[in-house]
């Protein structure tokens, strides 16, 4: 679901991170869908070399994916292959959550892992050799001194699936797929006619999904360590028995044929690695689930859920996993007891909490398996409950208690007339005003049921209702809009203070250069110092707010 302001935000983020030219390229792709190089050149009006390097940057950072389309030959002309580029909006938006990703990896695997991931985020994709070089340079040591540590950390990150081998540079879409290529031009106004959910955009994201799938390495390959490290830590192997003739097996076989030393060198020098966003999202999604269970039920239930998520996380197959794999009661007990918080829980307590999580009114766990003695986590339900909660909070803050009551009433009861709403929400006097406030911001809808063919207003019935999908869209777009505004304001503030910030840079530079040997000529007046203080405080507020907004964006868009 890419909303209007979601696309805008993509462009703004690219602008701040990579500058004007790269932004132009992204803008073409984000607003027009997949394009061939020639089309991008035409729309962006960039000269070929700038365009090429801009595209390279985007591909390097997984913001754009290239793919090949085969066109059937016309008449006697041979089939022709062309390359197109699609924007990966989700990945672009991930750029504003890098601080969150770094925090997550530090929590799990410590500072070395954080620094390694930081390098990958900064450069988009790196080989193991480059990673080692970077670490050595940062620590002021030789590569030989750091290589062991780097490899250990690297292996841990791969095992935890935080990093992965890069996908194929230019996968081909099968010819039979090409006829479902999205319409290049969405007719203007079509969006309005279809209501807020753009089906045209949905098709684009579908195509993006297919391309990504075609580009992705095989699951086993994706997390396969370089040959030189093969013994260090076994990557998680898929449970499925692999067909011996399948590709990875064949590749391994070929790899064996190669001189193993050369192969190892290739693996270290040529294979590119990048951050696996999916795994970071999974971790954040799990955290959200646990937090929700803690507020909705209690800390005990949260411990159970957290343990179950940990035990099943590796077997999740999609980023928006609906249900986890089922766990038997024994497996749950074992998982809970192996966590520091749950090690002293009695069997009875665990059973009680599981029953509570699975009870009708809650539905966070679903009974599964024969005899119903296994439980799967219904993550979808938990996330939905959390979203509902967030929406209600927004309605409450934005429109007040009475509006929130009306919103909840309509969400629960379906359609009602104004009079009924006034009575049930105990707001008979101002119900009309409240309803119109909600209507104006598209949190409720009203439908006329005409009893006369002339649609005489006094003879018609007006039914009010909540269209939840439309509300979700509204909330998400407002979130993007707010985030965009925050970014724009920040850029504006920085620009306004350009002069004084330039001075600060100069000061820093002279301080770094001479150890007091050369006394700097630049000093800040007290007014300028105040300006600097102000800008750094504003930056702090805006950055913190942006991260919070992004939590909500994740909740509504990625989970």
């Amino acid at each position, binding site marked *: 679901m890419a909303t209007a302001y979601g696309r805008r935000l993509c462009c703004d983020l690219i602008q701040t991170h990579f500058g004007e030219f790269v932004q132009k390229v992204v803008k073409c792709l984000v607003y027009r869908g997949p394009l061939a190089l020639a089309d991008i050149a035409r729309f962006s009006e960039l000269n070929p070399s700038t365009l090429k390097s801009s595209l390279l940057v985007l591909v390097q950072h997984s913001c754009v994916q290239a793919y090949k389309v085969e066109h059937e030959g016309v008449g006697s002309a041979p089939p022709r292959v062309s390359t197109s580029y699609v924007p990966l909006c989700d990945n672009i938006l991930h750029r504003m959550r890098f601080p969150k990703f770094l925090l997550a990896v530090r929590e799990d695997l410590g500072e070395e892992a954080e620094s390694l991931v930081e390098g990958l985020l900064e450069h988009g994709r790196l080989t193991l050799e480059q990673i080692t070089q970077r670490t050595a340079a940062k620590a002021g040591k030789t590569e030989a001194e750091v290589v062991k540590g780097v490899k250990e950390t690297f292996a841990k990150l791969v095992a935890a699936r935080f990093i992965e081998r890069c996908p194929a540079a230019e996968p081909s879409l099968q010819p039979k797929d090409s006829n479902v290529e999205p319409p290049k031009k969405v007719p203007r106004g079509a969006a309005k006619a279809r209501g807020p959910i753009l089906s045209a955009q949905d098709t684009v994201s579908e195509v993006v999904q297919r391309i990504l799938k075609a580009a992705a390495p095989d699951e086993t390959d994706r997390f396969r360590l370089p040959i030189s490290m093969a013994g260090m830590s076994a990557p998680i192997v898929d449970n499925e028995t692999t067909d011996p003739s399948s590709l990875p097996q064949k590749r391994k076989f070929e790899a064996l044929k190669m001189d193993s030393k050369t192969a190892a060198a290739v693996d270290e020098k040529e294979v590119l690695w990048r951050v696996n966003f999916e795994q970071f999202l999974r971790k954040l999604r799990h955290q959200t689930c646990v937090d929700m269970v803690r*507020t*909705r*039920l*209690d800390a005990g239930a949260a411990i159970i859920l957290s343990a179950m998520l940990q035990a099943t996380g590796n077997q999740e197959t999609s980023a928006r996993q609906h249900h986890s794999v089922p766990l038997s009661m024994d497996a749950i007990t074992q998982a809970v007891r192996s966590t520091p918080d749950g090690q002293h829980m009695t069997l009875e307590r665990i059973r009680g909490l599981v029953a509570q999580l699975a009870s009708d009114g809650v539905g966070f766990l679903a009974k599964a398996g024969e005899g119903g003695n296994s439980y799967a986590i219904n993550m979808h339900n938990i996330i939905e409950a959390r979203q509902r*909660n*967030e929406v*209600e*909070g*927004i309605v*409450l*803050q*934005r429109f007040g*208690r009475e509006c*929130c*009551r009306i919103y*909840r*009433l309509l969400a*629960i009861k379906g359609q009602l007339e104004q009079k009924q709403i006034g*009575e*049930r*929400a*105990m707001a*008979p*006097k101002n119900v009309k005003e409240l309803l119109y406030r909600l209507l104006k911001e598209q949190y409720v809808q009203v439908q006329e049921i005409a009893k006369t063919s002339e649609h005489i207003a006094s003879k018609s019935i007006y039914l009010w209702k909540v269209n939840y999908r439309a509300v979700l869209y509204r*909330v998400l777009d*407002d*979130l993007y*809009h*707010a985030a*965009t*505004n*925050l970014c*724009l*304001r920040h850029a*504006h*503030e920085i620009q306004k203070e350009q002069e004084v910030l330039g001075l600060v840079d100069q000061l820093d530079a002279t301080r770094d250069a001479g150890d007091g040997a050369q006394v700097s000529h630049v000093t800040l007046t007290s007014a300028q110092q105040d300006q600097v203080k102000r800008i750094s*405080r*504003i930056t702090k*507020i*805006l950055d913190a*707010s942006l991260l*919070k*907004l992004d*939590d*909500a964006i994740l909740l509504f868009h990625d989970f």
Partner: protein
Amino acid sequence: MAPGLGETINKLLDLCRAHPDGLPQRVLDEEIPDLEMLSQALNFLLSKQKLVVFTQGDNIVYKEQSADVAVKFKGLSSEDMLVYQSIEAAANQGIWTADLKRRTNLQQPQINKALKNLEGRSLVKAVKTVTNKNRKVYMLFDLTPSREVTGGAWYTEQDYDAEFVDVVKQQCLQFITRQGLADLEAIADAIKKSGITQVELGLEEFKQIMDTLVLDGDVEETMGGGTYSSDTLCYRVAKARIPETSALTNVPCGICPVLHECQPGGLVSPETCVYFNDWLSF
């Protein structure tokens, strides 16, 4: 020999007393077969306002006017009576003057005169309605207006008393917080005993209050628990409250009335936004 007018009148009145719920025409026709005499007697009694006519379904019935009532009605014109009867038929719902006009086929001045007479004698009264405050309805003097007219217990003087509702809500919530779990009757009992209000509140009113508390996310419904059987609807304080803050509404744009008009470089823009100025400079 056929009875005289006087005897017929007496017999008629006797019959009326024997049928306090109304003397049907059918009975009259059987008991007083002399049609000529009967109509004379009826006319006499009606003109003296000793008798009133009603319709019950398709039937016409007669009732004797009691002595003191008869005094009140003495000297009212037939138009006045027509108006009176229309008002009486509307019972505790009351009737609006426009409807009176339609029912009686009288002219507005006639109706106004009749209403003045009837109000002067405390036979009818005007009541303001909650549905339309400028509109008065008329009903018999002794009647208590229906809930539709007054709005029920939450209305004071035809005005919705939001403050009163809030007080009762807070009391209910406090009681549940103290008790942990309570059903509707226990809540109603406690509030009535607390004496915070003189207004008579029924279970229906308490249910309304509880429903709002549920919608506000302050309490939640649960079946049974504690000393209650599993088929009793009970209330307890909600665990998951509606959040008091959200990321979106914590930034100015999230509560901004002109969010949808706000464009970079536009009339309203994030660069020049005054809300941001305040927010960033506190």
